[in-house]
């Protein structure tokens, strides 16, 4: 049943130009970064004579592309997640889902997975793009895998938060703005505590948890953080929808 809701979500994502446009524009931007990265690699490495200054091509280009990607999804996710529930609220299509034999949890998780699957296309494409480096160099697949997992977890967390804000309002634009502001704050929370990196609040920052992935390290603590983040917002969304049923 969750799969059916997710499929429905994917279908309406691809039924409007919005999905295609965002997907293609983002891929264009990532492609440009990738090409620039390869060019820069030669320029930088030709200047670096000592072995200590040299880095692998995977790390050099990968860090550039994944760093840029994790920043770009900050704009892309709110645009995609805003419609998920608020649009249904506005066009009064929620009763269609509520009167079908599916639970609220299934609806929410289905919608979430639909969006994550859509954004997963991006993650897979970026990974595939970087793997083409293997044609002329010997690249570090583990690094790409760690980064892909990190990016996917980050995108999923963004989606969960976006889904929650989308359930709060009838106006997709309001949902998008709220999501963007909240994500922006969470991303740059650790900047505010730059002087005191051990601060508890700083460790709430999404960027900090992405950092180990971007270095090629899969840390269970970070996976747990993203998992809890997603779980929290999905639960809040279910509760918000349940309140609709109770309060009307």
């Amino acid at each position, binding site marked *: 049943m969750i799969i*059916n809701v997710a*499929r429905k979500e994917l*279908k*309406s994502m691809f039924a409007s130009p919005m999905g295609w446009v965002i997907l293609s524009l983002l891929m264009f931007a990532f492609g440009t970064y990738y090409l620039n990265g390869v060019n820069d690699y030669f320029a930088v490495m030709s200047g670096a004579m000592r072995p200590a200054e040299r880095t692998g091509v995977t790390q050099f280009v990968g860090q550039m592309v994944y760093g840029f990607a994790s920043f770009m999804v900050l704009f892309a996710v709110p645009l995609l997640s805003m419609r998920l529930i608020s649009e249904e609220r506005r066009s009064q299509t929620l*009763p*269609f889902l*509520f009167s079908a034999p599916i639970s609220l949890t299934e609806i929410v998780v289905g919608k979430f997975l639909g969006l994550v699957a859509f954004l997963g296309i991006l993650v897979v494409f970026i990974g595939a793009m970087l793997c083409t480096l293997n044609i002329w160099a010997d690249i570090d697949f583990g690094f790409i895998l760690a980064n892909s997992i990190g990016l996917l977890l980050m995108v999923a967390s963004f989606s969960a938060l976006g889904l929650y804000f989308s359930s709060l309002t009838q106006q997709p634009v309001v949902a998008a703005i709220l999501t963007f502001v909240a994500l922006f704050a969470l991303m740059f929370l650790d900047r505010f505590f730059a002087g005191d990196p051990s601060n508890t609040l700083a460790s709430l920052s999404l960027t900090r948890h992405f950092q180990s992935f971007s270095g090629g390290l899969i840390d269970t603590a970070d996976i747990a953080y993203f998992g809890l983040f997603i779980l929290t917002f999905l639960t809040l969304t279910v509760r918000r929808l349940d309140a609709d*049923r109770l309060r009307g």
Partner: protein
Amino acid sequence: MNNFTVEAIELTRLYGGREAVSNVSFTLSKGQVLGFLGPNGAGKSTTMKMLTGNLAPSNGSVKICGIDMMENPKEAKALIGYLPEMRPLYKELTVDEYLTIAARLHRVSSGNIKKAVEIAKERCGLGHMSKRLIENLSNGYQQRVGIAQAIIHNPMVVILDEPTVGLDPIQIRDIRALIREVGAERSVIISTHILPEVEMVCDHVQIIDKGKLVFNGAIDVLKKQRIGNKLLITMHNPPSAEAMLKIAGVTEVELLPAGQMRVRFADGAAPAEAIVLAAVQNNWGLHQIAPDQTSLEDVFVQLTYQEQAVAEASIS
């Protein structure tokens, strides 16, 4: 084991202390079509939302084929097809895509989805609209898609909130035929403002006003109330009331201007023939005699305003 398809037990819904629906109880059996009547804001849609599990009742419970909506919402919802007042259509999809999703979400097994979609389209006259975007369909066709969505999984109970709104007369006739067809083997609940529709389609009627059930019974009861034992007679030389009362069966005579009179007669009596005979013998100049029907609207107004009148009387 009773075979009620829908059981509503003391349904009550509060909105901020105000009772939108209060203490509504009724049952519905297989093969019945129930008409829900009431003025705007009477609580028809709220009741339907509670029946379909879209709204939690403040008090009371709903059972669909014996399954409690609160305890086993999924099983109960699987037995219901619901078309809300605002059609829940995803306008960016085509008719086929939308109905396929509806079938899938309502647990139609994957092998039967295609067939279910075809049947639903055929029943609602949507065959030639398969590949059209719902957005581009006319209002009437969108309504048909809404109905198709509600019957696609062949549910035990079909609940339609104002199904004939925005349709042209021919479409209305088709939809009524469809409702009767579905109602023959399943249960159907429809709400409507159009009173003759209730007489045409439903076997049971409920009139709801200000959240309270003011009438609940078979359509025949309402019909009887409407037809009554009355005759309207027009004559050139009307006789006195006493002369009329002498005719067997006549219980009450009301003289109206312009030679008209309204005659009430006892249950089971049929004084029309005797009146005509008397009129010919006495040269009353009878030129019109017809059963005097109260319109359904009048009955409706009577029923919905009775309560109000009683309430006002008790205040003053």
